[in-house]
């Protein structure tokens, strides 16, 4: 269970990115966060694993405060939270397997991991994670040689290799073409359902949000302005969240193909 209690973030420049957000996300839920750029979606996601520090209030994960965690405790919290990024954030000059093994760092021991002598069981977990996203055959390929969609699946495998309780995905499909976007979103949905991992995804395409969001949270100017199911979120709701009428740019525009 993730719990936001009056969580606020003020950036050094004075931007109030998150204003008094109170929110509960029960285990196993797939939540989609929507809002315009600058609405605070990325900040909302990053305070969960402490990549962005809170200015006020708190976020707790299973009762443990993220704000008051010391460095070691914070790494412990982060080890149970996988994260997926818009620009994939892979180490491009190294192999896919080495990238996925980054998800095992917290458990592998500093000396072992620094020397690259991962235990066979860590390599096994990484291989299984790659199998789950269907690109295990690329394990020894350099990450830079993969397509965008493949790179994002490596990003998902890296998160899975942590054996996480929670997955955070910050605009995971914003750098991908529409068909690939659906593939990646379906991967996330499948992982959420099969493994029961709470999944929190930032999206800006409304149609994607409606298809994949079990629950939709709307953000505007750092405030939580909508919280409901995907089915309830009609055009009027989105107009409210965005504070303007909707345009074609707000839609990915490609219907999800039948799941393979």
């Amino acid at each position, binding site marked *: 269970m993730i719990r936001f209690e009056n969580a606020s973030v003020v950036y050094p420049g004075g931007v109030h990115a998150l204003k008094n957000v109170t929110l509960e996300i029960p285990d196993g839920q797939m939540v989609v966060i929507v809002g315009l750029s600058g609405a605070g979606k990325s900040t909302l996601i990053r305070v969960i*694993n402490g*990549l962005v520090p809170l200015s006020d209030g708190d976020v707790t994960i299973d009762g443990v405060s993220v704000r008051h965690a010391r460095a070691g405790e914070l*790494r*412990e*919290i*982060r*080890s*149970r*939270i*996988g*994260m997926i*990024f818009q*620009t*994939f*954030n*892979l*180490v491009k*000059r*190294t192999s896919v397997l*080495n990238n996925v093994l*980054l*998800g095992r*760092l*917290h458990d592998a021991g*500093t000396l072992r*991991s*620094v020397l690259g002598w991962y235990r066979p069981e860590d390599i096994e977990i990484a291989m299984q994670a790659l199998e789950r996203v269907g690109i295990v055959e690329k394990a020894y390929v350099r990450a830079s040689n993969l397509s965008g969609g493949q790179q994002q699946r490596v*990003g998902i495998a*890296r*998160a899975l290799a*942590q054996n996480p309780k929670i997955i*955070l995905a910050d605009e995971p499909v914003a750098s991908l073409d529409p068909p690939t976007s659906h593939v990646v979103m379906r991967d996330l949905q499948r992982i959420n359902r099969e493994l029961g991992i709470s999944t929190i995804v930032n999206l800006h395409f409304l149609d994607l949000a409606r298809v994949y969001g079990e629950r939709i949270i709307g953000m505007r100017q750092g405030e939580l302005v909508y919280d409901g199911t995907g089915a309830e979120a009609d055009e009027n709701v989105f107009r409210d969240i965005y504070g303007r009428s909707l345009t074609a740019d707000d839609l990915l525009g490609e219907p999800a193909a039948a799941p393979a």
Partner: protein
Amino acid sequence: MTAAQEARPTGRPAKPPRSLALPIGVVAFLVITWLSLSEEIGIGLNVGDLIEDAGRGLDIWAEFLEPNWAFLPDTLGPMLETFQMAVISAFIGCAVALPVSFLASRITAPNVAAYIADRSLLSIVRAIPDILYALIFVAAVGIGPLAGMLALLFFNIGVVAKLLSETVDGVDPGPIEATHAAGGNRLQTTRWAVLPQVLPNYVAYSLYTFELNIRASTVIGIVGAGGMGQLLNAQRAFFRYDNMVVIIIELFVIVFVIEFFSIRLRRRLV
């Protein structure tokens, strides 16, 4: 021109005024150069003297044109010594420079204190020129290649740590964020998110220092730090220009060959 300004459509910005920094800088540079050349306060360059004295070195030049190739076998020992000094100090210097440069970048330094301490130490290491290191170590351990190796070692640490820490400053922060998000600690982040990004540069800098060492060894040899430089200086003391030119040609060929291979190797790496 005023007509064009008046006719500027609304919404378009006015052309910003030209910055005077560049012309002022160029003029200042010219003035300082001219003052440095003058008789009163500068080095007093006189073109007339230059032409008048031009013929004085002709007999030396004549000797340079007749290399004493019989001297070549005598150079092989010192040449090997130069090569060995260069390899050893490049290897140890680059190995030491790796952790030193991680401490000298804000991205990988564990805390501000370590960062400032490391940076300050590096400034001192780099402020001392290679020939001064050679003088210091010749005084400390005596004339010979050991002093030369130690001088080159410090020179190499300074060069590689400077270049590499600047490369570390410029890495893509994405993988670092990903490693932090996965619960990795600082050492793991440095190893897996930073090192792979800077590795090609690191290898290139290491090759480059090896090249620099071959060159620098001729200069530091003059103060007694072993290798080809020491031999070159001995021949100069005996006015054996015919022997000196053999050494110079040999150095030229070696530096050229090393540069040729190192450029090709670096190109394949990056």
